[in-house]
């Protein structure tokens, strides 16, 4: 058989293994990059790289593997931004104005029960400093175990635990500070 014939099969296996995690990968990219269109570019680049290395992929689980690739892409993006610092600051509201990712808003009744709506909490999380934000999102939103987080970010589990504790303490402090202001 010609060597090209296994490409569609590889693509099919890759599609079945990697595409179910697209929302997870995009979610992490949104929190890390704080910008909808940068996140889209990063996720696309992540999937291209993942496909390229899919033959040599032997684990860990697919989701942490994709996250680890996305982190590398995002680090390159951070470096790019560092050279062009004005790129982000010029359009602070752009991400929020992009309607395409907007979830259905919580109904007024449930908003009374919650101290913050999703948009406000997302902003608080986005504002967390690295590496605390990354650890927090991987655990609380992407539902990774401590071991998987450790594999994804390449740090010992003890480091993951202290970062997570710090992230939650920072988030709660920011949260209560906002509530004080609102009074």
């Amino acid at each position, binding site marked *: 058989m010609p060597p090209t014939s296994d490409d569609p099969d590889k693509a099919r*296996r890759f599609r079945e293994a990697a595409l179910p995690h697209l929302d997870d990968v995009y979610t992490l990219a949104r929190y890390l990059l704080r910008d909808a269109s940068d996140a889209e570019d990063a996720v696309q680049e992540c999937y291209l790289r993942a496909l390229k290395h899919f033959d040599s992929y032997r684990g860990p689980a697919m989701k942490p593997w994709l996250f680890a690739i996305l982190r590398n892409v995002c680090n390159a993006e951070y470096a790019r931004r560092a050279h062009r610092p004005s790129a982000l600051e010029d359009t602070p509201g752009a991400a929020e104005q992009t309607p395409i990712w907007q*979830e259905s808003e919580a109904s007024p009744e449930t908003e009374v029960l919650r101290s*913050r709506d999703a948009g406000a909490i*997302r902003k608080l999380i986005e504002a967390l400093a690295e590496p605390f934000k990354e650890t927090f999102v991987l655990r609380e939103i992407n539902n990774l175990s401590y071991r998987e987080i450790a594999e994804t970010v390449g740090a010992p589990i003890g480091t993951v*635990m202290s970062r997570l504790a710090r992230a939650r303490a920072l988030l709660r402090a920011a949260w209560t500070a906002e509530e004080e202001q609102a009074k």
Partner: protein
Amino acid sequence: MTCDEARILLHALLDNELDAGHAREVEAHIAGCPGCAAELAAQREMQRVLADTNLRYTAPASLRARIEASLPEPQRQPSRRSVLRGFAMGSAVSALAATGIVAIVLRQDDQQRILSEVVSAHLRSLQAGHLTDVISTDQHTVKPWFNGKLDVAPPVIDLTAQGFTLVGGRLDYIDARAIGAVVYKRRQHVINLFVSQTSSTEHRPPKTQTMQGFNCRRWGERGLNFWAVSDIGADELAEFVDKFETAMKANVEG
């Protein structure tokens, strides 16, 4: 335990990441420390609010489409060139498939292809709502459920006492045939045990292969082919197969 340690470990307690011994230590500290107890309560409350809030983003359809388009795919809208190539290759393959000759052509790749199908079926089962058609930890519920749906009902054996919890059963398709999948859990890990009928009654010893990060252990026994697939380690999967085989032998002889 100091408060500094407890302030870190209480998060692991909240996340169910502590073993029983450490959990008891943290709980003991918190029971005697109002400050840490208040912190745990506050963090638990925050976690509850966060869990009730949708903090996830949904990837735009345009992004999904862009990624899909970057993957080579035979079914995609054919360009003029790929139509020509399709005549050269695709139609030849489908003509072969129609005559059944493709089975012979592909025979040597069969095992690899079926392994890939088994892993794909395992992956599909992990998507929300796809794991089980019948949910039960009782083998006497799962076993009759398969009857009438398949030519041969797979052996359903409860291995909860051996550390592998039976969670249910499912119909799946491997090699274009309906086959039974019996679903087990080890901690949070899913094990799919696929069972299909085979004409060969000889015993084929278990063999482990790895694909896409999943371990697959396959063997043959009494006219049945088995594939156990999971992301647990190869040693644990071998343990599962051993326990299953032992229990099945006991069932047959007992």
